[in-house]
């Protein structure tokens, strides 16, 4: 066989696999844009709503748990190392395993295959990034600004709510972005153990070897994650108080100091989370 034949065969297989991929995506998009697939209890509409509902509920629970604590830690500077240790250790935990563990424990306690253990796990998983966003946001506020507020007679409560919280918002929303992406992704794998959510398409597709169905799930979940993250990115820009632009916060590139402490960079908590 001459080298030219080799190249030809390679190009042929390349074109073939490209067409194959195109076919799957076209079939998947045809499925998604078919209105009949949106209706019903197991339709795209219901599953999308379930996915969003599970995500919003878990995030709200996590916000109630994490944000006040994070603000307090940022304000007082106490408990910082504990938070860092917890967020670091939490990263090593395999979410998939923890999810199944909670669900099985839920079954043992008679909860059946309900969503309660799933939402509990998702809320717990959302706590570390929210906590980190809240405390690092407050901590990143210039100490001179806080001292000035104190000097003009503000109480600690006023300092926290009127000075530190507004200035911390961009980083806090950054934490919210990480947490939300993580929850959306983990809610996807939760479809393995619970009904509902867009992950069902992926799980069904894998179990039934219906590849188009799996690709449908992948497209929908990816689109949901990208849209929600995009919306939160806009919110993150909008909540920055006027005068606190990205340039005004310390940036990382020139000094070298901050590179090791990326909490100070404006979008340090931004990097989204992937999962499930």
């Amino acid at each position: 066989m001459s080298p030219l034949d080799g190249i030809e065969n390679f190009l042929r297989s390349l074109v073939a696999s490209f067409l194959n991929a195109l076919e799957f995506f076209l079939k998947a998009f045809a499925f998604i844009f078919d209105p009949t697939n949106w209706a019903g209890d197991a339709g795209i509409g219901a599953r999308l709503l379930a996915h969003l509902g599970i995500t919003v509920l878990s995030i709200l629970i996590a916000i109630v748990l994490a944000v006040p604590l994070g603000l307090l830690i940022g304000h007082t500077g106490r408990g910082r190392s504990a938070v860092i240790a917890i967020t670091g250790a939490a990263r090593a935990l395999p979410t998939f395993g923890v999810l199944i563990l909670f669900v099985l424990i839920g079954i043992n306690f008679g909860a059946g295959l309900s969503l309660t253990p799933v939402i509990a796990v998702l809320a717990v998983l959302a706590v570390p990034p929210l906590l980190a966003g809240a405390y690092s946001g407050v901590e990143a506020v210039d100490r001179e600004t806080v001292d000035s507020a104190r000097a003009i007679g503000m109480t600690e409560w006023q300092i926290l709510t009127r000075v530190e919280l507004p200035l911390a918002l961009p980083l806090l929303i950054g934490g919210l972005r990480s947490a939300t992406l993580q929850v959306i992704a983990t809610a996807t794998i939760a479809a393995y153990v619970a009904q509902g959510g867009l992950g069902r398409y992926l799980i069904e597709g894998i179990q039934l070897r219906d590849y188009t169905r799996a690709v449908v799930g992948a497209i929908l979940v990816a689109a949901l994650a990208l849209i929600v993250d995009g919306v939160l990115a806009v919110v993150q820009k909008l909540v920055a108080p006027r005068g606190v632009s990205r340039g005004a916060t310390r940036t990382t590139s020139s000094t070298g100091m901050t590179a090791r402490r990326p909490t100070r960079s404006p979008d340090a908590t931004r990097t989204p989370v992937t999962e499930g």
Partner: protein
Amino acid sequence: MTWLWNNLGLILGLTADHARLSGIPILVGFAASIPLGWFASRSRVARAILLTGFGILYTIPSLALFVVLPVILGTKILDETNVVVALTIYAIAMMLRGTIDAFGSVSGDVLESARAQGFSSVSRFWTVQFPLAGPVLLANLRVVSVSTVSLLSVAALIGSGGLGYLFTNGYQQYFLDEIVIGIVFTVLLALVFDTVLVIVGRILMPWNRPKVVRTSALRTPQRDWVGA
């Protein structure tokens, strides 16, 4: 506990799989992020394109990427390549910003003096900029390492998740011990990887001992919040 002893062979085999399937993406991701990060630290356009592109890829939930990759790569769905490629993409996405910061953190004065001493740009990179960026690169690599080890278990849903097999199998058998053992071994493997990285860092960067301890993976909670 008896289950652990009776199935030790299976568990160790899965641990070895897990180490291989997560170790390759960690190493390949690190190697790929160096030229990409160097390139992005020199060009604003490249920086914007690379960070946005990998940011978008990183936003895609892993199970979705695991499932879509075989279509794009032309591989079989049960092929390990899909998982390795997906985790490598995530590893690069996690490393990239930190790598750019790391190269940017090397003082311009130092680089100028190296140039004045007659270093070519290639040798200046490998003998001056890269070693000086080392501690920050290591801190990032440790975060990537821990995250990749825990993320791999999701791939059990498509048949190649290393220790993640214990989660799907344990769920099917309603067997709590198996899942707990899976979690423990995953965390232990992450710890082993982390320890290896710290030791390698100390050997390669003997001047940096106190800093390596200070910038441990546990102390950089801010970015790349990855679980699962």
